[in-house]
């Protein structure tokens, strides 16, 4: 039993640091290349990339913190959000809905900050943008939400 606990703790500590399949420069290059698929919050010089799921509680906490410190964060940072489904959250339809909306930033705020339940527009076919993000995430090794990339390094 003692060994089992130790193994679990060891695994937890190994996974505490975000896994990253590619090196820093490659990761940076890929996320920068995908900027056009991202929803941008803020207009600062420093770029932050984050893979989030709109229904994930921790992703929601992250977005809430961003908006809470909007005055400080938005002029300093540009946060590029890539919506990437966490399978157990079943958010694929909502992700498509957000991407298709006229004001995705406002939708993210409504769902993730204000907790509103907005209607999902069911989609049978995954659109190209979501597919590109899926491929990017798999390539980089996104294994959790939020998965934050700063200067090509994942956290």
């Amino acid at each position, binding site marked *: 039993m003692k060994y089992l606990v130790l193994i679990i703790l060891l695994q937890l500590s190994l996974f505490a640091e975000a896994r990253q399949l590619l090196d820093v420069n490659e990761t940076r290059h890929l996320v920068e290349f995908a900027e056009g698929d991202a929803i941008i919050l803020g207009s600062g010089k420093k770029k932050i990339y984050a893979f989030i799921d709109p229904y994930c*509680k*921790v992703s929601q906490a*992250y977005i809430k913190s961003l908006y809470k410190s909007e005055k400080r964060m938005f002029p300093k940072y540009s946060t590029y959000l890539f919506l990437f489904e966490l399978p157990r959250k079943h958010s694929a339809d909502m992700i498509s809905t957000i991407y298709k909306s006229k004001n995705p930033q406002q939708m993210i705020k409504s769902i993730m900050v204000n907790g509103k339940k907005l209607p999902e527009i069911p989609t049978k076919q995954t659109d190209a943008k979501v597919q590109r993000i899926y491929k990017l995430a798999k390539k980089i090794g996104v294994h959790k939400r939020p998965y934050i990339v700063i200067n090509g*390094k994942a*956290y």
Partner: protein
Amino acid sequence: MRNKTSMIQRYLNLLVKLRIFVVAGISILTIFLFFNMNKPLLHDDVKLWLDGSQEYNRILHERHPKSIITQLRMPYKGSIKDIKMLQELHLSMQNSESILQVVSPFSHLSANMLDDGEESEMLSISTLLDVSSKDAKEYIDENMEYFKFFLEDEKISFFIVSKDTLDLENLPIKAELIHSNVTTGFYDDLILIGILLAIVFILFAIAFKTTLSSLMALLFIIPTTVITVSLFTYISPNAYAHVSILLIALTVSLMDFIYIYYKWHLFQKKHAPVEALLRSFATTLRPIFWTSVISVFGLGSLIFSDSLILNSIGLNIILSSLSGFVLSFTWLLALLSFTKTKNPFSVTEKSSHYFAIKEVHFHSTLLNVFLVTTALTFIFNVYHFYTEPVTIAANEKSKIVKLALKTDELKNADLVYLEKLHSEIGCEFGSAISTKSLYSEIAKIAEAENLPFNALTSDLEHFTFMLDLYGGSSNMINNGFTSIEIFLQKDSVQKSKIIQWLRDFDNGERLLITDTDSLLNAAKFDSVNVMFYVVAFVILLITLIVWVMTLDLRFAVIAIIVNVTPISWFFLFVKLLDVALSTEILVAMIIAVALASDATVHFIHHYHFHRKRNHTAQMALERSFLYVGTPLGLGNSILGLVFLLMMLVSIDTIALIGLYSAILVGLSLLTDLFVLPVLFVKMILHEKGHV
């Protein structure tokens, strides 16, 4: 000599002829200046100390604001209700525009992992303001050791950092403000001046058994002080007149007055009042001239100091010496020419004779023992002055040192600097202090994220992003500076030692001291050397002047001994009792040096004068006791009592100046009456022929 006397006589005759104009003119001038004095005296000397000081100039140069830390202490029983109220108070203060930062248990950052099941986690940084009152209470109770800095005897402390003095009167919680500035108005000053003058009036009436002496003393002290303070405010319109200016002006004018008045009083026993006035004038002109020279060129040299407070004390000494000298031989002589003393008497005639005999036959061994002990005391003081850092009295209630590190753009090298600071200050002061900086907060985040942390290589952007995201950076990184806070965990640790250690560590390169109390401490530390060098210069000047007056090196040596003795003994007690240096001690030292130099010059002038007239040592000593010892004893006793009574004043600065000055005046008087005359006798008695 005859020419000189006739010149003095001609001057006095002219003065007596024009006395109505002199008295009227000076009276009108004094009244005019008095009613134009609308600026209250400064009792809180923070501004005076800071202006011109090295560390304050550095933050001005870097355009970093100075901050005031006010401690707010409130009752705390640890209930959830208490915590809720305190959380609300912290939040409302934090949102106030006049407050830069609130340091309390609720501002403590803690880093935790947020988790929402599988593949969903992130680091979260929060303060005790972000959690419920119940959770905050549990956290505080569990980490009591960490929060002991804020919690003491069922009281909780908030430290409020602001640019200006805060008005925290309308707080929702009953709170005690630990340090706020002393503010007094013009009427408070009038009350203080009134008390001082009343004491002087009563003591003079007792000493001379006539109210004429009291009246004359007040009529002399008032215009001298008014003219000094007014001239000071005209010459330095932007400077504030510190309350010590009033006390120094009072001291200088009182001593000028007492020598002239006493001799005039005593000479009337054998001479007509006008003749007595002439004799008094003729015998006091020279010593008063020389003592004024010492004050103007010696203590007045403080005006060359960069520090505004030392500069203003120096200017004030020059002005009070000059106005005292001019008014002594115009206003005072004109006033005295209107009056005469009925049945003048000298209460000390018999005691002067008694002391003269006793001191002539004083045993040399005792004197030698005393001189050797004093010399050892002096060496002890000098040794400690050069080998040990001077301890400056700090505000005991000020428990935080606030610093800023210049970082144009935050780099890993800055973290390495902070790491070195944390490590070395920790080694030096141990658990007596704790340090909070960007380094300690980043290390906390790294630990929570289970990331290896290396100040030189870790990804700084990630950590600053996390701090930015959760508001942790707002109090830490601002306009090209990162702030550092040092908490004094134990009362035993001396703040001035920490500040000097920090200054040595950084060598004036990047680290700025930003809170007022610590800036004040650094400014005082830097001024100590200036003060001591000025006092040493004054003593050398006295020696030179005594040599010029007597052309005898032995008198010059006596002058050194007599001036060094009271200061040496005083600083021995200061050292032994571990009293930290303060403005009050330094002002008291200046007052004591001014008085000691007065006594030396007057005594030496008389003794030398009588020895030159072929009087024996005993006779010369008796005369010196009678004509100098008595006014000296009276003047110092009156001043000593005035200073002692000043301890009853509720303003701390004045009460402390009173205490230290009274001790130093007492020591000076003992030296002047019991050491100086014996030195004359022992060093100059066995002279063949005359001096």
